[in-house]
């Protein structure tokens, strides 16, 4: 009896497992944001003049923009002047080999379960590590180079492949798209860059692991992925942060471009620190992710498992420009305690016979609020376009909220849109049934929730799915009983 009670206690009082801080020497800017900060940042990174100008123009837009108010989340105004816009582990130069990475940073990634060396050897996954603002290591580089695949930090891409960066940066998410995109464009510090050349099927998953470590900073990474004609790439993104009482801002921009017959699969497991049970602290996750299916028969598929952050504001979208292009969005969003999530997608159909598929699973527990917000827009040109949308919500307990806000705009009569939505609760009957078979209540919740999300989990690459599955269970600890 005592043991079982302790177990339950362990579960309900379980804390964010990734909440440690790594003691590394860091270099950072004092808080504040103005043109001078942007110039310094750009100079620090040795950027060409066009990029500095691009940043400055974004900053001017940022200052002219207002915070959006349509989302269903509440938070105190963000003081953008209180944030430091550059924090980096201090090292003399970028490490030439993986052995030169600061051992403390290595230890951090080990704690997170992604030992850099082992990942490289065992998993065959190429990983880019972004620690606070800068990318610290990119594994597997040589092997990719042989195929002509470019996978590096965006800072490196600016130096080594300026023509590609200049051509595509901001082509999918323009700096003036929204206030967070404008901020990111002005101050983005690092992120990942991928280019897959014509006809190349990238033989391994490319992966970036984002980690916020320093206090009082924001993280503004920028990811740009270009799949040239007939190529394929699968990209994974994982994120964690230490526990802190303050809120930290994460405002990333991700741009994907798929040319004719290219396919990009983008998977995210987002586990930023969600704040404590009373809603103190946690990451404000305001992210703009958008993919452009520019080519004919191209395909972009977003899969996301969102369990972290105090606030999630995120709508990975597809612009289906090429004829017969395909957009997909598979999402699991879990909120517990005081978390708030307003997430969904936009599918913009421009090309003929474009197809999109949306499967969203929202799980709310505690006193959290979970909103699916989605737009399906079919333009006049999108002859024979099709969309299928399925939004399922699951409620755990009596004090949480689940909301579904679908927008559908159809300008072409030949289009077909289907929308299905359900709301369910984990029933006492289901919990009792599992427990009667010997499964603990917490495990039963995880089991039932994983079943509810299976369609989405099936879309994740294998090794990621295992992690995501565990994460769902952990996020919902203490949500029943």
């Amino acid at each position, binding site marked *: 009896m005592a043991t079982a009670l302790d177990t339950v206690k362990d579960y309900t009082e379980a804390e964010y497992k990734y909440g440690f801080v790594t003691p590394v020497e860091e270099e950072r800017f004092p808080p504040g944001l103005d043109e001078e900060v942007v110039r310094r940042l750009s100079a620090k990174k040795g950027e060409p003049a066009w990029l500095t100008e691009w940043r400055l123009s974004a900053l001017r837009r940022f200052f002219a923009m207002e915070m959006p108010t349509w989302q269903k989340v509440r938070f105190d105004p963000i003081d953008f002047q209180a944030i430091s816009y550059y924090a980096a582990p201090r090292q003399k130069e970028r490490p030439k080999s993986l052995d030169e990475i600061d051992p403390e940073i290595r230890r951090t990634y080990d704690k997170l379960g992604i030992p850099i060396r082992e990942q490289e050897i065992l998993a065959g996954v190429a990983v880019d590590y972004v620690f606070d603002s800068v990318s610290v290591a990119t594994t597997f580089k040589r092997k990719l180079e042989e195929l002509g695949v470019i996978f590096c930090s965006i800072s490196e891409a600016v130096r080594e492949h300026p023509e590609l960066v200049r051509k595509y940066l901001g082509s999918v998410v323009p700096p003036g798209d929204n206030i967070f995109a404008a901020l990111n464009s002005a101050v983005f510090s690092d992120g990942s860059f991928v280019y897959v050349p014509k006809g190349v099927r990238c033989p391994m998953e490319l992966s970036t692991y984002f980690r916020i470590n320093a206090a009082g900073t924001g993280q503004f990474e920028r990811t740009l992925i270009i799949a040239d004609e007939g190529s394929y790439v699968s990209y994974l993104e994982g994120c964690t942060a230490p526990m802190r009482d303050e809120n930290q801002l994460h405002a990333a921009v991700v741009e994907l471009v798929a040319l004719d017959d290219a396919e990009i699969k983008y998977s995210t497991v987002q586990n930023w620190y969600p704040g404590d049970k009373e809603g103190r602290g946690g990451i404000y996750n305001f992210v703009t992710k958008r993919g452009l299916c520019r080519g004919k028969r191209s395909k972009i598929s977003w899969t996301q498992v969102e369990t972290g952050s105090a606030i999630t504001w995120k709508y990975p979208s597809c612009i289906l420009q090429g004829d017969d292009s395909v957009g997909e969005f598979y999402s699991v969003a879990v909120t517990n305690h005081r978390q708030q999530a307003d997430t969904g997608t936009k599918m913009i159909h421009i090309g003929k016979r474009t197809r999109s598929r949306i499967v969203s699973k929202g799980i709310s527990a505690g006193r959290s609020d979970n909103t699916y917000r989605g737009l399906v827009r079919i333009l006049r040109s999108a002859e024979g376009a099709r969309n299928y949308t399925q939004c399922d919500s699951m409620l755990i307990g009596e004090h949480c909220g689940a909301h579904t806000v679908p927008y559908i705009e159809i300008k072409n009569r030949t289009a077909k849109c289907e929308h299905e939505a359900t709301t369910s609760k984990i*029933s006492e009957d289901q919990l*009792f049934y599992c*427990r*009667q078979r*010997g499964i*603990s209540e917490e495990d039963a919740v995880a089991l039932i929730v994983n*079943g*509810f999300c299976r*369609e989405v989990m099936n879309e994740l690459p294998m090794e990621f799915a295992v992690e995501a599955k565990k994460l769902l269970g952990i996020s919902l600890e203490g949500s029943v009983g």
Partner: protein
Amino acid sequence: MLEIRDLHVAVEGRPILKGLSLRILPGEVHAIMGPNGSGKSTLAHVLAGREGYEVTSGSVTFGDEDLLALEPEERARAGLFLAMQYPVEIPGVANMYFLRQALNAVRKARGQDEIPAAEFMRRIREQARLLGIGEELLKRDLNTGFSGGEKKRNEILQMAMLEPRLAILDETDSGLDIDALKTVADGVNRLRSPERAFLVITHYQRLLDYIVPDIVHVMADGRIQRSGGPELARELEERGYEAVLGGRLAA
């Protein structure tokens, strides 16, 4: 093995069990019969630890443990199994996966390692074959879209895999045709052993033609009113509850 002493249970303040006593020894098969509303299913749920039942007095010991102090999963791990009248659907969770998770939870509590995948597959296939359960049903979502007969057979499959010390069958015969009833009864009979006991709750005598009990109890108004051998079940079938219980049913 199981000792129930003067058990009183209320649901939302309304007394349902009113002083029930019952003793089950290892190897015994007990049947509880009774009219609707006599408290049979309440007894099954209270023993399994379902919420919503208030034990107002009395005690239940299972082995040497105070059963009522245990959480439902602890009871299950201690070897108590309830084959449910209405097995619930859990969409997205494969039948086989669920069973393996349950089996490993029980094994862990007994200090055993997780069952190796190959051994699990061998055992589940063997048991499924005996119960006429196809491979396809093992892969489907737990109870989701199962027919009444499939659900009940699946309960027996779980029981066979989990190897409980005490199995309670709550109206397992309801909604079964005669072939399914035989399959289920065979499944139960195969599991009878000197160490294992059964408590078979049923409304009809029919099931007891196939699972022959050692002792039959007639329950009415929250208590066991009469106990006897298998002949008591036949007497009930012939004469009806009212005649067998006489005035005792009136309350």
